[in-house]
């Protein structure tokens, strides 16, 4: 079974499902605006006191906020719903239904759910990035744009891998829903460039939960701070995370017994 075709089929089902509830679009839009508004209030409080924060100007931090919002939309539309369903399936024993299907189990559990309306955050994030870019009076070169997109995709893949690894813990530990909360909390740290955090926290946000790669690095690409070396480093880290998460998933799966179904 072609994994891309499989993902696309589930995507289509997800969109069709969500299209039945169109008013949710407006609700999601309102929620996105609330989070932008609180973000802006936070920024204005900070810049009521200083003109730059650890070397980042106000429009630059607006770009960080945009990337954070965009990536948050990706997490909530694709990654988180699939992983939460996986946790439930492991606990209830209903993962059997996915495992007996003639497709790669990891692909299958990663594409089954799709929250279409959450993509509103992606659009709103792009608008915020656009506004920040206009305020920066910057020009977006083709190389810069490619760097930004590459950083964004690699960051997304890394976040997915971390989610999968953490979710794989549910093969051993029963109550893991708090993990979603833990992850959301750590992801919130990406609202600010990781450079402002103390060393131990910055290391954690780079290597344990790669918020640095998911938010700060793409934002650096936009604000002309990114070097080719960091991008290569990000690529290496992405490969490492992919291999590690695949390994842990398989280890967890061999531990699964489908107890309650």
């Amino acid at each position, binding site marked *: 079974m072609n994994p891309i075709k499989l993902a696309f089929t589930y995507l289509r089902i997800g969109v069709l499902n969500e299209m039945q509830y169109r008013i949710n679009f407006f609700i999601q839009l309102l929620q996105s605006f609330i989070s932008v508004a609180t973000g802006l*209030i936070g920024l204005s409080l*900070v810049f009521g*006191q200083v003109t730059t*924060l650890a070397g980042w100007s106000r429009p630059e931090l607006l770009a960080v906020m945009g990337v954070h919002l965009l990536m948050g939309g990706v997490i909530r539309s694709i990654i988180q719903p699939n992983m939460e369903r996986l946790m439930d399936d492991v606990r209830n024993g209903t993962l059997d239904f996915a495992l007996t299907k003639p497709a790669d189990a990891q692909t299958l559990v990663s594409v089954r759910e799709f929250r279409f309306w959450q993509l509103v955050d992606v659009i709103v994030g792009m608008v915020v990035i656009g506004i920040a870019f206009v305020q920066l009076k910057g020009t977006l070169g083709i190389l810069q744009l490619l760097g930004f997109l590459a950083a964004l995709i690699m960051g997304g893949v890394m976040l997915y891998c971390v989610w999968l690894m953490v979710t794989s813990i549910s093969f051993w530990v029963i109550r893991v829903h*708090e993990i979603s909360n*833990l992850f*959301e909390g750590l992801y*919130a740290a990406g609202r600010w460039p990781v450079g402002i955090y103390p060393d131990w926290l910055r290391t954690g946000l780079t290597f344990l939960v790669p918020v640095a790669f998911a938010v700060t690095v793409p934002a650096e690409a936009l604000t002309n701070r990114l070097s080719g070396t960091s991008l290569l480093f990000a690529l290496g880290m992405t490969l490492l995370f992919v291999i590690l998460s695949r390994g842990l998933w398989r280890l967890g799966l061999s531990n699964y017994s489908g107890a309650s179904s």
Partner: protein
Amino acid sequence: MRRYIDFYLASMKIAILSQIQYSVANYFYMIGMVTEPVIYLVVWTTIAKQQGGMAGGYTAGAFAAYYIIWTLVRNMNIVFTPYGWEWRIREGQLSMELMRPIHPIHGDVAYFAGWKTVVIFLWLPLAAILSWIFKPDFDIRWMEVIVFSLAIWGAYLIRTILLSLLGMITFWTTRVSAIFDLYFGLELILSGRLVPMTLMPTWVQNLSNYLPFKWTFFFPIEALVGNMTDTQLWSGVGMQVLWITSGTLFLNLIWKSAIKQYSAVGG
């Protein structure tokens, strides 16, 4: 009265026994939650340092004290969520609770109160680690400790009332997530959860005086780490009592008309 006391003691005991079993899960939850104040703390410490040691009258050590105590107050502020109310009403779970000879809200208050005692216990090592990292400046008087220990429970009750009222909107409409988000946004700004209220523009501070939010965050924290006089401390507790009393009366009023609306959508 006797049956209420028995009910509360039994529910709290159940909560304590069941939550202790999940201490790993509780720690995951608490660590996830602690990142929020750490972010604020780092941002404001950076600002204070950039400005030569102080921002809005707070030194780095004062910010550290504020946000470390914040973590306990935030833990005390976790109550039965409005999303829980939504689920309870939408799925018809409330029907079962209505059969009991006691108001369902007592169950929430008692269970979460029991859980809090576990949380306070689990919080202590976390606070020690945070203090070791961020070096807070504490200058605490006995009276402040007494008022703080009362105020965190006052905050718990006020927030229970507020979030129950919020959740009860589900009796009238099941599309509530945006309303909840709006509430949490306002609370973030007006309670002292984002920054100490004194860093806010004056008009926001004035506005917050007429709203319940700051009595659930800013007041308990400031009671311990700030420099309030005894009169200020006790009048703060008085304000909490006022909000609890009026909130309870209002909750009863709303409950009477809400329960008539109840149709157990999915039950």
